[in-house]
């Protein structure tokens, strides 16, 4: 069966660490950086478990700041 592999690219400078993408992610792929911050002082989102991403783009839809770009590819 074909599987979907996704990749989430976060625009670190725009991210405000609101956590909405983390809540909306169905596969627990995303999380906020526990220590690192961007130059505005926000704990930005990153792919904590990149292998779990299915590229559903739910994170992108709910992101209020448009910092998320999602790619998806079918893997046989």
């Amino acid at each position, binding site marked *: 069966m074909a599987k979907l592999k996704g990749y989430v690219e976060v625009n670190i400078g725009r991210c405000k660490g*609101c*956590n909405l993408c983390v809540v*909306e992610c169905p596969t627990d792929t995303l999380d906020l950086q526990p220590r690192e911050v961007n130059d505005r002082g926000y704990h930005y989102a990153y792919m904590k478990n990149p292998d779990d991403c299915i*590229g559903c783009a739910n994170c992108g839809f709910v992101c209020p700041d*448009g910092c998320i770009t999602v790619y*998806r590819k079918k893997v046989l």
Partner: protein
Amino acid sequence: MNVNDIVNPENLVYAKPALMNENHMHYCPGCSHGVVHKVIAEVIKELDLQEKTIGIAPVGCAVFAYKYLNIDWQEAAHGRAPALATAVKRLLPDRMVFTYQGDGDLAAIGTAETIHAANRGENIAIIFINNGIYGMTGGQMAPTTLSNMVTSTSPDGRNVKTTGGPLKMLNMLALLDGVCLATRVSVHTATAVKKTRRMIKLAFENSMAGKGTSIVEVVSTCNAGWKMTPEAANNWMVENMFPVFPIGDLKNI
């Protein structure tokens, strides 16, 4: 599998809309305004109206909307966006004119303008962001504030006996003959965002087709004003706002 195999333009499923520029948005983290801005940018691009759209910005947090979307904007005095939109649409009937207003703007100081523009059936789209308080000025009580809701000017909760109950603008507007679309949506989940996108697209199409006034109410959060995290604000909205402001179409002709 290598990341570089996935990250290439042919696999792109979601990206920041092309009409939204690189300016850093001043909205608080998790604010619903950003999502609605994105949806508007996507719909305008999809309908290929970027050269024909004129947005009317309100007074409120979205007063700076012109900084974030690369379309033509005009700034209205507080509450007067539907009046200004009427003028723009009548003078330039081939343009798509929409107003973007909060509840303090549309439901308080601009009640008369909104109701009369809708009653005249002006061919404009009204995007109404309802978060139940005056977000920009520090979370004061608005006409749409829920009963017993604590705000900075109702510290003991809104008293229905002295200040009335939450004003349901959409239900009032849906009764008017000039209104062709009155719908209530939200943007707290991906599914809800997609629904909002469909309704805003329909509203913009109605404006171009001259069918009358379209009102899309987006039940939103103001996590800073409500003094909650964005996630808690979304849950609070589902629990408390939705029973008073139920999601769905009130009118769609």
